[in-house]
């Protein structure tokens, strides 16, 4: 079996989810060709990557084309599939060979159910972050280009950066996430303080973002980032399906919430029933002491 793996890069290095995709391809026993495309500054990455991958896939006789299920990967996978007339699945959590085709599992209804999908022939699949361990070695990454880059009609007129630092939730080892229960922007800052002490990254639920306590690049959940850190500390997070589906792959979950019935406790390794605004400062003190 031949697999084409698109490696998405950030600041020149493969993102963590792309390393996980390599493991998915290895698990299929596939011969892997890893590729990446450089995107001209005034072009939309989706257009360039679609065109470049299609050109490579047409020549290469691949059985499967794999992407990380990022914003980019989930848009490009079906577009590539449309041009190759292959079956596509976004957000796969497992992929198995099945005769000449594949059997894929993906979450639906915000993760409360999973769907099994069969593809009889060639497949183009994006793999959800946290579904496989990251590959330890990366094969040589071949640079590919879009043959028709000049003809693509959509140009970027202006790029506007989001205020605040770049956030890399998917590759974070520790995430301290705040929800509605943090109550105010001022108290939400406790999450940042704890994250800083632990060398982690701040996550947030949709209500925390809608309240303006932190910007949307920190959102964890179905409409934000899908994460699977070693430790996830959920502060004042009730555990709405929308959020839990984005973090339930975490290896160790600590939850603090004053409502003992909160669904977040169903997935937590340690659940503390109590006032997050009193507990977080004590935790911060203890971790500071531990670190000397």
């Amino acid at each position: 079996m031949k697999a084409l793996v698109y490696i998405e890069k950030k600041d020149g290095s493969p993102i963590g989810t792309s390393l996980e995709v390599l493991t998915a391809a290895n698990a299929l026993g596939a011969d892997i060709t890893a590729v990446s495309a450089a995107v001209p500054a005034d072009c939309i990455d989706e257009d360039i990557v679609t065109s470049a991958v299609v050109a490579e896939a047409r020549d290469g006789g691949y059985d499967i084309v794999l992407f990380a299920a990022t914003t980019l990967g989930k848009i490009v996978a079906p577009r590539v599939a449309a041009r190759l007339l292959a079956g596509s699945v976004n957000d796969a959590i497992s992929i198995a060979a099945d005769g000449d085709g594949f059997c894929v599992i993906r979450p639906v209804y915000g993760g409360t159910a999973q769907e099994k999908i069969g593809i009889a022939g060639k497949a183009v699949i994006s793999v959800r972050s946290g579904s496989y361990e990251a590959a330890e070695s990366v094969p040589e990454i071949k640079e590919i280009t879009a043959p028709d880059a000049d003809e693509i009609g959509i140009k970027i007129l202006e790029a506007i950066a989001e205020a605040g630092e770049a956030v890399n939730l998917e590759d974070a080892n520790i995430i301290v996430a705040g929800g509605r229960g943090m109550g105010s922007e001022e108290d939400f800052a406790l999450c940042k303080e704890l994250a800083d002490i632990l060398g982690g990254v701040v996550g947030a639920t949709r209500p925390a973002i809608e309240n303006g306590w932190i910007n949307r690049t920190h959102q964890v959940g179905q409409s934000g980032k899908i994460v699977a850190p070693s430790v996830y500390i959920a502060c004042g997070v009730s555990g709405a399906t929308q959020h839990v589906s984005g973090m339930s792959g975490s290896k160790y979950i600590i939850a603090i919430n004053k409502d003992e019935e909160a669904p977040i406790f169903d997935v937590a390794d340690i659940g503390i029933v109590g006032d997050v605004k009193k507990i977080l400062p004590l935790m911060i003190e203890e971790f500071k002491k531990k670190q000397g």
Partner: protein
Amino acid sequence: MEILVCMKQVPDDSIEIKLGADGQPDLSKAEPQGNAFDTYAQELAVRYIEANGGTVSILSLGPAENETCLKSALAVGAEKAYRVDDAGFEDADAFVTANLLAAAIKKIEADNGAPFDLVLCGRESTDYIGGEVAEYLAEKAARPFVTNVVEIVQENDGAIQAKKELDSGYNWVDAPLPAVMTISKPDYDPRYPKIKDKMAARKKEVPVLAAVDLALEDGDKVALVKYLGYQEPPKREAGVKIQEEEPADAVAKMFEILAADKVL
């Protein structure tokens, strides 16, 4: 400007859907409604034509029950709503769904004697969350495609400027028309219908196009993926619950467990 919004009818996304005894998703407690992102697309379209002129039409694929979301759309600024009856295509995947929508759009455009300047879709549906139909549709229609748009500004010289949401920041892009776009969540929420508009919408006729009558090539009718059924996600074991009167005791207990579990 003539705008068409594709709308999927989905179960209420605020209700948790679980598998029933028959292994199928139990939708009995979730009222049908227009997919949230599609309603954002409609609101964005209606705001645009209110400011700049034009009409907004809605297109939905599905059985007669889907007229629920179409009637709702007609009550909040859409002028026309069309339904493609999917009888004969119940196994449609994203590819076939997009092909049916593309063929229906072609037919409506031919009947109207003019193309839609913009075809908008929500970025994904809240039930299956595949995020594929608009992509297949744009490829089939071979029109310029902009994803995750949150704002459009007045067309100029056959092109439109769109604000495209990125993981971090935005791009303003210039897209030639006609184009296909997916819409993400803008800063505003869709409007609520007024009673009188609701009444008027109820009386409006929704033209129905039969999927089996649409001009589709044979290859475009065959699904590329097959839905084989559902399974429960593996359950995560709930761990230790700490319930202490004093926050300091709770934190002390947490550190004991962390030490035992060799975490942090």
